[in-house]
């Protein structure tokens, strides 16, 4: 392991990764990798998570292709220094901010979107000119195997490496010095990563999770809008990896009187999208492994929680499948309402007045996303200014993930740092400020021994009081 990292450091020192042609070559090679191995990727995702082809394309293959193509088209622009404007006092001078790679970076990816969460940060790290060690999650073993075997065939081995293995490998990696660590996963492990990084003052980006709420107001009274809302909620809960996604809708907040309308519509679309036979569910992933399955099944074991199930609830331990399940008002102090669900269970919490949803959300740690289905402009403004979350999406779910111009990241317990689009490039760069000065003109008052004149001069200069300076210099102003 130490040898690999030494090689990465040597490669970085040699300057290979800094050239725009190297970076573009790698990005093109990554596109080739995905294009030429689509079937293998579909297979691996099916094996690890039971993802259907459309889901795999939409959430993984398509995302990576889009991200790599976008980076390729913008790279020259991103790499160009940004000019700064200087005040007259500095004349003649030139200021600019130059992005430069950080060096050798470590990327930890998660098991739920094992291709996207590994390759999307990789795209950012490559674009920014770094050398990279990628550690995919062992909980998605087929994908990890795919990545460890395929990446060396397409990308520059001396600069980009993949390492397999379990938590012990991760621990060993964290004992070493990196120039940046990018981590996607749980807050618990996020803390361990940041603590390890502190030893070397390594900057980190932590993409964590949280309980992403969906607020639904009386748009439900409008039948056509209610349909769209319900579809988007269903699509946003069970669509991505059967709820095992950091941005999946965790729970819904709705007014008491509209709850039954919502539940009926959600039921309708669950049946239409996935079917209602546990043994024959279609177009939906399964639970990743026994451990997660057990955890989710246990959430339903609490008798009060079990009593609140209004749809679904059946589980198939052998196939690791849990039916899309709706719960109505489970107790607020139950585990299901206090830890990130990360699965196909959807609690619906009723409120007397939908405006109470703001207080409800604020009583919990900052989520990665807040979803709100509403057309009330005042309510939208309140949500924006009175809650804090990584991001907010109005009247839809999940889709903000596809927007390259929006930063994707958390705040508080949902993490810090961000990526996607140019933000990926920035997160793996150091923005170096550069100031060019000329030898002339020289400002004598900069130098001691100090006199009253010099003092006055500098005071005026720092206040950018050019007129005052002129008066001082021409003797019309006393020092």
């Amino acid at each position, binding site marked *: 392991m130490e040898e690999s990292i030494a090689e990465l450091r040597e490669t970085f020192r040699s300057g290979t990764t800094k050239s725009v042609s190297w970076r573009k070559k790698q990005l093109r090679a990554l596109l080739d990798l995905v294009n030429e191995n689509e079937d293998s990727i579909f297979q691996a995702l099916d094996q690890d998570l039971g993802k259907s082809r459309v889901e795999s394309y939409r959430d993984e293959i398509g995302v990576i292709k889009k991200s790599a193509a976008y980076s390729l088209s913008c790279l020259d622009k991103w790499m160009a220094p940004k000019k700064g404007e200087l005040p007259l006092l500095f004349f003649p001078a030139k200021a600019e901010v130059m992005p430069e790679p950080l*060096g050798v970076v470590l990327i930890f990816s998660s098991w739920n979107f094992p291709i996207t969460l590994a390759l999307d940060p990789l795209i950012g790290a490559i674009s920014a000119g770094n050398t990279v060690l990628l550690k995919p999650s062992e909980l998605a073993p087929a994908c990890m195997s795919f990545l460890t075997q395929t990446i060396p065939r397409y990308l520059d081995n001396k600069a980009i490496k993949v390492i397999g293995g379990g938590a012990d490998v991760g621990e060993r990696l964290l004992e070493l010095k990196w120039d940046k660590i990018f981590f996607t996963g749980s807050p618990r492990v996020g803390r361990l990563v940041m603590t390890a990084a502190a*030893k070397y003052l390594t900057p980190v980006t932590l993409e964590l999770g949280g309980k992403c709420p969906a607020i639904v107001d009386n748009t439900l009274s409008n039948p056509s809008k209610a349909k769209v809302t319900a579809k988007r909620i269903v699509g946003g809960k069970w669509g991505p990896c059967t709820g095992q996604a950091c941005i999946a809708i965790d729970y819904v907040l709705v007014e008491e009187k509209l709850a039954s309308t919502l539940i009926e519509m959600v039921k309708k679309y669950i049946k*239409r999208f996935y079917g209602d036979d546990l043994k024959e569910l279609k177009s939906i992933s399964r639970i990743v492994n026994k451990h997660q399955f057990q955890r989710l099944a246990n959430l339903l074991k609490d008798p009060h929680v079990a009593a609140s199930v209004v749809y679904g609830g059946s589980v198939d331990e052998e196939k690791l499948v849990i039916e899309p399940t709706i719960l109505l008002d489970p107790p607020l102090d139950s585990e299901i309402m206090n830890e990130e669900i990360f699965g196909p269970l959807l609690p619906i919490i009723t409120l007397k007045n939908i405006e109470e949803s703001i207080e409800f959300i604020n009583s919990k740690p900052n989520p990665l996303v807040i979803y709100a289905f509403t*057309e009330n402009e005042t309510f939208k403004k309140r949500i924006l200014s009175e809650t804090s979350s990584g*991001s907010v999406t109005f009247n839809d779910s999940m889709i903000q993930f596809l927007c390259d*111009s929006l930063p994707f990241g958390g705040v508080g317990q949902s993490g810090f740092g961000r990526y996607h689009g140019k933000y990926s490039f920035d997160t793996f760069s150091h923005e170096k400020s550069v*100031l060019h000065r000329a030898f002339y003109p020289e400002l004598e008052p900069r130098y001691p021994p100090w006199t009253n004149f010099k003092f006055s001069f500098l005071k005026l200069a720092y206040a950018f009081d050019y007129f005052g300076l002129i008066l001082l210099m021409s003797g019309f102003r006393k020092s």
Partner: protein
Amino acid sequence: MGIEVEKKAGFDTESAKEVVKELRASFVAGKTKTYEWRRTQLTAMLKMMDENEPQIVAALTDDLSKPELESSIYEIAMLKNSCKLALKEMKHWMMPKKAKTSLTSFPSSAEIVSDPLGVVLIISAWNYPFLLSLDPVVGAIAAGNAIVLKPSEISPSTASLLAKLVKKYLDCSCIKVVEGAVPETTALLEQKWDKIMYTGNGRIARIVMAAAAKHLTPVVLELGGKSPVIVDSGINLQVATRRIIAGKWGCNNGQACISPDYIITTKDYALELVDSFKCELERFYGKNPLESKDLSRIVNSNHFARLLKLLDEDKVSSKIVYGGERDETNLKIAPTILLDVPQDSLIMNEEIFGPLLPIIMIDKVEDSFDLINYSGAKPLAAYLFTNNKKLKEKFVEKVSAGGLVVNDTTVHLAEPSLPFGGVGESGMGAYHGKFSFDTFSHKKAVLYRSFAGDAAVRYPPYTAGKLRLMRALLGGSIMGIIRALLGWSKP
């Protein structure tokens, strides 16, 4: 100068908890979020400086024997500029920024909103105790946060003045100063903050970051390092020398994070450079620099002893070519230049942070880049004096540091359009100008969608046709979408 630090009686974990609780309540109540509140605080800060300049200068003289001009210009005037800029630009900074949306999410509109982070902790340093305490506070206020400021106990007069002035001029229910030393700082670091900004050294920075990790608190660390100056030949030597002197001894007598730490020049040029230094140093500080009023003293006896240890090391003391005088009673060390110290000496392996300037000699000036990049730690700043265009380009391309300046030293600190921060051992994050506002904000992405335009392709049951369309939509080209709709593309 053994001033006893007056600690707030028993500021322990409980007290720290109470402080955070109070500030969090103020924040949640929305006090700090309004434009008016932020404006009022910044205006009050300006008033505070206008009405207390002599007291501030006196405290800085007490703590550092800082020349009045340095206090007035490099601490007070700089801070005033920072406040004025924030007051002028804050409305603009606070406005949401529109973001482009692509065909894939059509129809939609998007923006990025700047949210305050919440309750932030700012730990500052002793060398520019006024500026480094309040400049971050300006950013935190502009971004709408509640704040605890922990000034350094090594500059106790300034710390207690800050506590007094903040209480008098600013909103105490939202901005507090906590004085003290290690126990008080530890108590503060145990609490949950929404951001911590620390200015100081790498050792404490590690402790700060590890404490922050427990609560997943993001940090900004403004540290230091050995900022090198490369001096090429064929330049205006007098101007270059003066600018180096201004950045070294003119900045708190070398006790500044971006002070030139050491010089790299060619063997051929070194002696000429030394002569120029001797000439200009005498012009600036006279024949008896220990008596000059224009130099700060060394802050305390610990640092004084530390610097003497660097100077008196056997293989180094013989390399002094100018200066070396010291006055222990008054904690003064004269501007000292050393020529050709060994690479493995103490003075070449820790940040000097004092009035000693080693000069390292190399054969070719280009060799300096590798010397800097292989030194093991990226510095906060690096400087180059040259008229050679190619050398400038190579310098900017090859040398990694927080910030670079060509043909001057330290002035980039005063330019708010440049982000000020380190990389690697010299730190993470940046501030100044709008970067301060950004560093204390959360940039929240907001996507607005409408109920119209719901594509069936998004929902199961999934078919080959939907997959085709999905490919086209993600590919983002209109032709691709049309082809998919007509059934002409790959499933």
